[in-house]
Structures are given as structure tokens and as C-alpha cells.
């Protein structure tokens, strides 16, 4: 076998499995779902009728869609921001202080590995207005005089949901950042210290640049995931109170399974998808995560 064809075989062999899986399991259904958005289809009838752009025209005029879009932005930016800060702080602390304590590190990663429903139930239990221990603590220490309706209050619901998402997914960031931190060549720090840099300088000159790609990738992946997040929010508030936490995925869900209009829901999902596509393109242009990183120079 010639070197060239051997090389081609390698390329094919390594990338084919992933491609095949994705084609069948992901691309095909996505194509079908996008196609669905051009039809009128209700839930209880297998028949579909072509309506062209009607579905899009209808939802783009719906104020509920735009409100949901705004809420999605708030939730995504809030949750991702919280996760990045949390991930960075906790990774730095863990890296320094507790090299040996595996138990603690395992604990940090645990929230991410729990099913959303478990997190939802635990937080409902913790933050409940009547039974919640958090309210109990707040009242016993005198911070508040009446229990806070975390998930049910018009002003507090969105923040509570962001906080919960931050707690649950922050450890994803911790994991990645910590792993990357430990891969940084200690000689780089030595070199910096030798040239007189204090801890803050070390952080900005050595740590942060090496973390750059990691942080960018985390922000991108978490951003997409949070934008599309459905189950966490729905399980604690069902989009309430009074739609205060109704983000785009929940709005689409409502269209599909409360209004029973699959065509509209497909259009809403496609809109979400296009938003993310544009966002990702912009992101790529700005930050270029595909750029190969230099392993310490």
C-alpha cells in the first residue's frame, strides 16, 4: 500500500465512525425537524400540509417569542458567567490547596454528574418557601423576616434558576480548568518568578494565557448548552411564575405539547438553531478556538 493511500485509510478510519454516527443520529433528525417547520402539523393528526413560511411569519410576530428570546439571553449569559467565575475560582483554589484530597475533588465534580431532575428536586427542597432550610437559616439569622419564594417569586425566579444552573454545571468548568492548570509546565512559573513576578503577575502572564483556549471552549460549549437548556428550568418552574422563566426551549415545548402545534414548535427550534449558528460563527471569528495552542514557549 502506498504511503498516500495508507494515509488516506488512516484519515478515513479515524474520522468515519464519528461521521457515520453523527449523520444517522444527528443530521438526519435535524433535517427532518427543520423540514417540519414548513408544514402545518398538529399533534394528533399524522397528516401534514405545506404552508411555506407561514409558521415563521406567525411566531416572529408573537411577542411571546421575543420575550422568551430575551429571557434565554439573560439566562445563558448569567449562567455561563457564573460557571466561568465559579470554575476559575474553585479550580485555582483546588489546584493550590488540596493536591492530595481526592474526596474533595470528587465532590466538586459531582453536581455535574447528577440528573437534572435530582438537582431540581434537591433545590426545590432546599429553597422551598415553606419547608426550605435555606429560608430557615435566613430567618433564624435575621437576614429576612419572611421566607423568600425563590422559584415562585416574579423577581427571584430567574436568579434562582441561574444560581441552580451555576451550581450544577459550574463543576464542568472546574474540571476542565483544573486539568488544564495541571498541564501547565511548572518551569513557566519558575521563569516568571525568577524575573520578579508576584502571584498576581504570574496569574495574568502565565496562567491566563494558557487557559485561554480552555475558557473560550467552555464558554462556547456551555453557552450553547445553556441556551438550549430545557429540563432544569422546566422541572423547577415550568417556565413560571407567569412565564418569568420561560426561555426559548420552554416556549417551543409549550407550542408543541400545550398548543399541540408541531409545525410552529419546529419553526421556533429552527430559529433558536439559527441564532446559535450565527452566534457561533461570530464567536469563531473573534476567538478562533481551532487555532492550535502552543505548549509553553
Amino acid at each position, binding site marked *: 500500500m502506498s504511503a498516500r493511500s495508507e494515509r488516506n485509510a488512516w484519515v478515513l478510519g*479515524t474520522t468515519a*465512525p464519528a461521521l457515520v454516527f453523527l449523520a444517522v*443520529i444527528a443530521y438526519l433528525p*435535524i433535517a427532518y425537524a427543520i423540514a417540519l417547520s414548513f408544514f402545518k402539523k398538529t399533534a394528533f393528526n399524522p397528516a401534514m400540509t405545506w404552508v411555506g413560511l407561514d409558521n415563521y411569519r406567525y411566531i416572529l410576530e408573537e411577542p411571546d417569542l421575543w420575550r422568551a428570546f430575551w429571557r434565554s439571553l439573560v439566562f445563558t449569559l448569567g449562567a455561563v458567567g457564573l460557571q466561568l467565575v465559579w470554575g476559575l475560582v474553585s479550580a485555582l483554589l483546588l489546584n493550590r490547596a488540596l493536591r492530595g484530597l481526592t474526596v474533595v475533588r470528587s465532590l466538586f465534580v459531582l453536581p455535574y454528574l447528577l440528573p437534572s431532575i*435530582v438537582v431540581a428536586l434537591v433545590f426545590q427542597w432546599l429553597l422551598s418557601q415553606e419547608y426550605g432550610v435555606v429560608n430557615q437559616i435566613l430567618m433564624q439569622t435575621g437576614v429576612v423576616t419572611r421566607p423568600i419564594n425563590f422559584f415562585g417569586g416574579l423577581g427571584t425566579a430567574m436568579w434562582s434558576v441561574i444560581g441552580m444552573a451555576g451550581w450544577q454545571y459550574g463543576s464542568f468548568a472546574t474540571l476542565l480548568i*483544573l486539568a488544564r492548570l495541571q498541564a501547565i509546565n511548572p518551569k513557566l512559573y519558575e521563569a516568571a518568578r525568577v524575573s520578579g513576578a508576584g502571584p498576581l503577575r504570574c496569574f495574568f502572564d502565565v496562567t491566563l494565557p494558557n487557559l485561554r483556549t480552555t475558557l473560550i*471552549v467552555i464558554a462556547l460549549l456551555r453557552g450553547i448548552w445553556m441556551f438550549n437548556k430545557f429540563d432544569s428550568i422546566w422541572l423547577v418552574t415550568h417556565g413560571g411564575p407567569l412565564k418569568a422563566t420561560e426561555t426559548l426551549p420552554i416556549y417551543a415545548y409549550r407550542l408543541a405539547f400545550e398548543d399541540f402545534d408541531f409545525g410552529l414548535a419546529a419553526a421556533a*427550534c429552527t430559529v433558536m438553531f439559527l441564532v446559535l449558528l450565527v452566534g457561533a460563527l461570530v464567536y469563531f471569528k473573534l476567538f478562533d478556538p481551532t487555532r492550535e495552542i502552543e505548549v509553553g514557549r
Partner: protein
Amino acid sequence: MRAPTASSKLARYGPLALLLVVLVIVAFPFYWMLLSSFTPREVLFRPPYRFFRLDLSLGNYRELLFATEFLVYLRNSLIAAAGAIVLNVVAATLAGYGLTRFAFPAKKGFAFGTLFSYMFPPMLMAIPLYILFSALRMRNTFTGLILAHMAISLPLNIWLMWQYFQIVPASLEEAAWVSGASRLRALRQVILPSAKPGIVSVAIFSFALSWNDFTFAFILQTDRAMFTLPVGLAIFVEQTAVHWGMVMAAAVLVSVPTFLLVFFLQRYLLSGLRVSG
């Protein structure tokens, strides 16, 4: 020796105090979940609660394990997760290797393409998948569920392995080639071990996404005997006036396998890369 100044005290104890706060925030929900799961039902209906209690009871667990189908759901979740891990590791590792070691024209397109599928809301992918699997007679099977879980985890994992393979320098492989090994052999014996932390990360994320999934499991598994934990939990919670003790017991049991998994894989996950010649 200089007397410790306020700022140097802060520098010394600050991070520790901060770490403590962080630890409490992460750990308290688990502590409370654990404590509540061992608290008798009647006590839970009457707040305020004490933070420590000695009168613990196993009643909630007994009810959960024997009066509900929790064990069946647990088994199903474990099988689905195991399958997802295996397939993800193989496909993502190969793809990650291919992407970093070879320059081929469609590379950027491939990278973007995998991200592309990650961006689509899983909820609306579930229905077409349902139709596809119905046609292939794959509803209510583990294979079907595992493949569906791959749809959401594979893109992420390809990215991860791509990143990790970038850190493994080409010089390692080249050294192996120079000493006469074939590319395949070099891959197996040199590259893969160095990428272990990456592979373990992939395993953990695949596990998380599979274990966590509600949408696909609900839409694809219609037989009660095939429900996974999230689906089963959601359904039995709504049938009762939220029996918090039992719900917390279920939460604890669901956390235990994941805790053990992470505990034992820590080593691989966070061991530094030794870039030796």
C-alpha cells in the same frame, strides 16, 4: 522576623477561607439531601429542622427500594451509560487523533459540523429519532437509547479529544516511529496512554450526559420496564404529595454510583502530563 501584617495575613488565610466558603456551597446541598433522606416522614412535614440529628431511620430507603421500581430504573440507566461511554470513547478518540495528526481539506468543516449538531435543541430531535427507531424496530431497546445519547455527547467529546491530542506533542510519536514502530503501534502504545486524562474526561462526560438525559429516554422508552432513572423519578414524584424523604433517598442513591466513578477515576483525570523525552 517581620510581624505579620494585615495584608500578608489576608494573603495567607484568604484563599483558605474562600476555599471553605466554596466547599460549603458545593457540599451543603449534598449534606442536606443525605440528612433528609434518613429523616422520618412525619418529622419532615414539620419545619423548622435541626441541622444534626441522631434519630435516623431507614424507612425512606426501605419504601423506595421495595415499594417502587427504583432498582429497575437504576439498572437501565447504568446499562445505557456504559454503552454510551464505550462508543463515545472509541469514536471520539479516533476522530480526535485524526483531526490533530492529519491535515485534510475538510478539517475545519468537520470541526464546525460536529459543533453544528450540538447546537440543535435535543427536544425536537427526539421526535424524528422516534420515527426512525420505530421503523428500525429499535424503540424500547438499549441500543436505540445509547445511540440517541451519542447524538448529544459525541460532538462535545470530539472537541475534547481534539484539544487533548493537541497537548500530546508529535515528538512522542516520532520517537516511536524512529525506533521502528508502525503508526498503529505507536498509537496504541505511546499516544493513547498519554491521552488517558482526555479519555477519562470523555468517559465522564459521556456518562454524565447519558445519566442525566430525560428527553430521549422519555420519548424513546415507552415501556415502564425500560425507563431510566430520570424518567422514573419524574413519574413517581407526581403521583404522590411529594414524599420528600423518599425523594431525597432516591437522590442519594442516584448520586452514589457517580461519586464512586469519579473517585476512582480521579487519578487519570487530573494527573499531569509528563512530557518526557
